[in-house]
């Protein structure tokens, strides 16, 4: 078995199993906790919980200027690498083929040149996020191993993917195998580290939206 066979065979299969079971385990163990029910009287005219949850989700997509924000740059940069990652994962023709193999659906890919630009921009954005994390006194203080490790494990597939596409540094098959192994690592880490925020964000924003909504707070 070559390294590539291992990467795209057992490694990715195992990683996907860990990802799916891990995420399910995290969500079920979280949602299975006791829920504090709110017995306070809802303000008259308050929106329904569904509406408040949606409002909460949408409202927290940006930082209100009047609140004062530590960094407009950080907010914009956050959007850049999130959107960049989405473009790469769902827009690159080869990725679409993999996803088609998994889910049976496909869609047209973006030109490789667009993906390359997106990958370079994403990489630059991730580097900028790291620079901010290590240079800002606030960020340095609140950063943990989880933050740095998650950064590395998110950045690795972008970097190795770019190298593989550009045939830089090693044989294409080796680069591709390394790229797949970094993805396997990301999938395995996903449920246990802060990447889980991709799921938790729907809960936390909605719950805060509901709690403020029933009070009639307009923000």
């Amino acid at each position, binding site marked *: 078995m070559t390294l590539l066979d291992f990467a795209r065979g057992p490694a990715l299969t195992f990683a996907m199993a860990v990802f799916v079971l891990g995420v399910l385990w995290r969500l079920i163990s979280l949602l299975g906790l*006791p829920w504090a029910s709110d017995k306070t009287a809802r303000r008259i005219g308050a929106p329904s919980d569904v509406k408040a949850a949606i409002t909460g989700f949408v409202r927290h997509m940006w930082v209100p200027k009047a609140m004062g924000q530590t960094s407009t740059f950080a907010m914009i940069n956050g959007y850049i690498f999130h959107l960049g990652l989405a473009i790469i994962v769902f827009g690159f023709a080869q990725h679409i083929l993999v996803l088609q193999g998994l889910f049976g659906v496909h869609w047209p890919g973006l030109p490789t040149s667009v993906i390359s630009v997106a990958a370079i921009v994403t990489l630059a954005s991730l580097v900028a996020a790291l620079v901010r994390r290590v240079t800002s006194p606030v960020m340095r203080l609140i950063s943990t191993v989880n933050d740095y490790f998650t950064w590395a494990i998110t950045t690795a597939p972008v970097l190795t993917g770019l190298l593989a596409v550009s045939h830089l540094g090693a044989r294409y098959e080796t680069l591709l195998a390394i790229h797949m192994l970094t993805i396997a690592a990301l999938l395995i880490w996903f449920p246990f580290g802060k990447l889980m925020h991709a799921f938790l964000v729907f809960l936390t924003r909605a719950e805060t939206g509901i709690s403020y909504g029933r009070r009639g707070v307009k923000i």
Partner: protein
Amino acid sequence: MTIDVQAATRTFLAQTEEHLVSYLEACVHCGQCADACLFYRTSGDPRHTPAYKLFPIAKAYRGQKWPLKWLGLAPKITEKDLTEWEELIFDTCTMCGRCTEVCPMGIDIASIVGQARKAFVAAGLGPADLLQAAENSRDHGSPLGLTPAKLIDRLDWLADDQEVAMVVDKAHSDVLLTVSSIEAMKYPTSLSAMAKIMTHAGVDWTFSTTGYEATNFGYLAGRGDIAKIMIQRIVDAAEKVGAKTVVIPECGHAYGVLRWSAANILGRPLPFEVLHITEYMAKLKREGRLHLKPYDTAMTYHDPCQISRRGGAAADARYILEGFATDFHEMTPTAEMNWCCGGGGGVQAIGRAADLRHKVFKIKIDQVAATGTNTLVSACANCRLTMDESKIHWKWDGGLESLVEIVAEHLDDGAAKSA
């Protein structure tokens, strides 16, 4: 002093339910909350970053579910954690909730600080003066020594001095009016102002000597047992007089606790509606029962956090001011976005926090100056006391007023009679 780490851990973990755990697990350590915090904004100290304040409770929770817990390798909170964070949890958080607004994950940090305080107190920590205020409430009826006898004394004096009926312990009444001892002891005319407004509007109301103190230092000091006692007293008094409405005086946290927490603390819905005096005055105005002469002083309005940002009643204050305060200028930012006075969340009662609190108040001084006015009106006696103390500290020449008092001073009884 011994610090009971076990008790703190137990108390942290006893509170874990879905909301709290989601919040603790969702933080991505992005740091956006720092600049929204009045303490970080003032001190520039990274330790004042709201997300950082949650570290001990997050650690306790992480330790509980750590995979290698059985090998004794799980993270544990330590005495050092607790002593280091005590100041961050009590002195440098007013639970104003600005950080919640900027959080990209929508984490309600302020509510977690309230829960964390209980664990610190269980460990034997917490500012002595804040805890004393809570115990005074339980033992003497109020944090500032306002016993039932003293309340009657104050109300009698106000009835004479202000020439208004101060109704106490009426057998049956539609409205139970409560007090904040800060008002009773420092700004007593706030109480007679409420009485004047009630009388003007022909409301059937009373004070009660068994349930009068609306402030809840039990809640602020992390003493859940005392918080419950204070709520129970008001609920019992309201049920006894058959009140349909309990009116909270000018106190932000009193409103926050009774309106948005009490039912959850007691475990049952309250059998009456709870309205802040601002909401009540707005209601009277909507019903055409509040007739006012114009108030012409150039002024701005300070939103008490628990009434506007965390209470949902920002619009009511504006509705009262509309067509009444002829020279009203909003500050920037305002309403739900407004800056806290620096003394909420019990910080006002923590003596050792005063220096930083005064520095924080500079934000408010600058906000007022930018409006071009020199009078700051608020609807919270705790904000007012905080601002009064800082005003003296900085020798600030701005005027401080209470909304309920300016309304009471401008009642148009002639118009009420002809209406």
